[in-house]
């Protein structure tokens, strides 16, 4: 996917003016937040599971080679093939190579955020395959020729009306009626996609967890599209990334308790499937070939750095559902695959800090994301580290750097600070008296502080600082 993160400022501003987006996001925020809260409170040891998940992921990340090799040999033992891809180009080449056979034309695809990183669909289409997204949300944005705006609800920014229009445009030719009601929309998608499921030659899915001990891929969906994608065609390809490996089945239970609750407020998602290799000899159905493409794409470079914690992410989306910035501007403003808090941490690491300079600052550091993250990633702290790196690289705005320097020089010296602040409040008060004939107590406009005063009043400071008043009190005592 093209990196557009440099335009954050502009796109965020535009997003704020989008009335449809506002309605859609408002609905999503309430739903996700409230339902999560209910099911989390119900589990009396949720915090213990969070700690368990954090520790398990930390352990695996510290021994990633070991677990990945173990996973690989167990996939092979069950008859599957493992392919290693260090970057997106390699993934695209590997997948195209697997599919390059005369009888293969149609590819169905379950939701995979990893594959968005390098536009797998475009790569496959360029090689003349027909690619159909089967997750309803993904299907909608594929028709709309857009990118996901949320990692678990890719079409969260779309209103029902927009979907009605889209379906009308694309399905009319095949004789489908215009559908307005939610149920009818879903039914129509079901019919259209059913045809594709049953005629696809290859199915590509992602994977949520890779279980080293058994070589299993755990795939979690609510719609069931992942299973139809994986089971009906002759070939099942899993495109997934290396940090998703966990040690064993016992660990899986803990992660599942966290994931459903954090992502959608479910005690368990509808379909959790473990795939182990291709169809067995006497199995009655299932694919004949099973491939796992293990994608690095920059992840191993994050290992061992101060940002390693972000590799614990299980892509539940809770951080964005609880982010007051994300819920107001939506996911597209972030300009790449991963939006919200986890995106603001991950995107600069994956596409380069210079290509996403605004993201680390697109946060008030309110910390709500950190309190809900099921694997306890200290997201605000990581954003602060990004800021620190930008400062050290000399990438922060010069104006800001100088301002900070001057201010720090003043602030390190209490006497100077006292003088400057006393002077400042007096100056502002004079200014206030000059400017504010009718509006007592607040500025409506301050030159240089337009970013504040364009929408907010600014209080007039007191005539003397507290420290000044205190000195006076002490002297008179």
């Amino acid at each position, binding site marked *: 996917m093209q990196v557009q993160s440099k335009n954050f400022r502009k796109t965020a501003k535009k997003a704020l003016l989008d009335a449809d987006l506002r309605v859609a996001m408002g609905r999503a925020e309430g739903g996700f937040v409230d339902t999560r809260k209910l099911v989390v409170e119900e589990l009396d040891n949720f915090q213990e599971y969070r700690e368990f998940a954090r520790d398990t992921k930390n352990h695996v990340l510290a021994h990633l080679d070991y677990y990945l090799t173990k996973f690989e040999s167990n996939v092979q033992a069950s008859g599957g093939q493992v392919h290693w891809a260090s970057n997106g180009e390699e993934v695209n080449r590997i997948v195209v190579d697997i599919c390059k056979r005369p009888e293969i034309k149609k590819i169905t695809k379950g939701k995979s955020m990893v594959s968005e990183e390098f536009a797998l669909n475009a790569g496959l289409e360029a090689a003349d395959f027909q690619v159909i997204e089967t997750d*309803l*949300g993904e299907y909608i944005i594929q028709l709309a020729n857009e990118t996901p705006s949320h990692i678990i609800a890719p079409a969260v920014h779309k209103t029902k009306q927009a979907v009605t229009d889209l379906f009308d445009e694309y399905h009319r030719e095949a004789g489908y009626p215009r559908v307005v009601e939610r149920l009818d929309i879903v039914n129509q998608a*079901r019919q259209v996609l059913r045809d594709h499921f049953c005629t696809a030659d290859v199915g590509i899915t992602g994977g949520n967890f890779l279980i080293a001990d058994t070589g299993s891929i755990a795939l979690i969906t609510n719609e069931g599209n992942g299973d139809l994608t994986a089971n009906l065609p002759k070939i099942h390809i899993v495109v997934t990334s290396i940090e998703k490996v966990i040690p064993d089945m016992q660990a899986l239970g803990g992660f599942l308790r966290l994931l459903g609750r954090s992502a959608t407020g479910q005690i368990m998602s509808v*379909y959790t499937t473990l795939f182990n290799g291709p169809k067995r000899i*006497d199995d009655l*159905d299932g694919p004949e070939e099973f491939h796992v493409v293990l994608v690095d794409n920059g992840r191993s470079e994050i290992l061992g750095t101060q940002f390693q914690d972000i590799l614990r992410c299980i892509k539940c989306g809770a951080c964005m559902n609880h982010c007051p910035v994300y819920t107001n501007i939506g996911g597209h403003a972030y300009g790449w695959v991963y939006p919200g808090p986890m995106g603001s941490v991950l995107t600069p690491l994956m596409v380069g800090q210079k290509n996403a300079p605004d993201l680390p600052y697109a946060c008030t550091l309110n910390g709500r994301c950190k309190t809900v993250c099921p694997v306890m990633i200290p997201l605000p702290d990581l954003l602060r580290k990004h800021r620190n790196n930008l400062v050290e690289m000399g990438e922060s705005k010069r104006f800001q750097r100088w301002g900070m320097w001057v201010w720090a020089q003043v602030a390190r010296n209490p006497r100077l600070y006292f003088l400057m602040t006393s002077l400042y409040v007096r100056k502002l008060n004079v200014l206030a008296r000059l400017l504010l004939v009718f509006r007592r107590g607040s500025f409506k406009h301050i030159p240089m502080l337009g970013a504040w005063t364009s929408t907010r009043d600014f209080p007039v400071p007191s005539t003397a600082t507290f420290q000044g008043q205190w000195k006076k009190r002490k002297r008179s005592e």
Partner: protein
Amino acid sequence: MHTRVQGTFEGVDSLQDVPLAAHRYLVGQSVSPEVVISPSPELTSINWKGLKVEFRVANRKDRSSVTMAFAGIAETGTLVMVSSKQSPINHHFLPEFNIAVLKQSKLVDCMENLWPLIGEHPRTINLITGPSKTADIEQTIVYGAHGPRALHVILVRSTC
């Protein structure tokens, strides 16, 4: 728990009672009593009087299926299906109505106690918790996105 995840549920005394229960359920849903059944010994040995049944792999024309659950997880109301020559995977996903038969003796309290029962992994283990659903249209839940619209569990109490 299964009803909380929007599945329906009923208990019967023995495997022999399953056909009647399945019939009643399908008629109640206004679906004709034709089912494709997983060829597991438990299901093939029953007398399916009153229903039109076929023991084979489901295809897209089948409206209803009957499957035999390997186990159930009480904590989450989850059905556990393992693939084998007795249990095709498509039965759980292609038909609109899925009736799953679960023996009470096969209930475990949580997932951690399930894995030892399975042992060596088959091609797929499906943990199914309620009917298929989506919230992709305006975050409002609609059932029957791609998998079954309805999932009915028949719990068999007898141990034999």
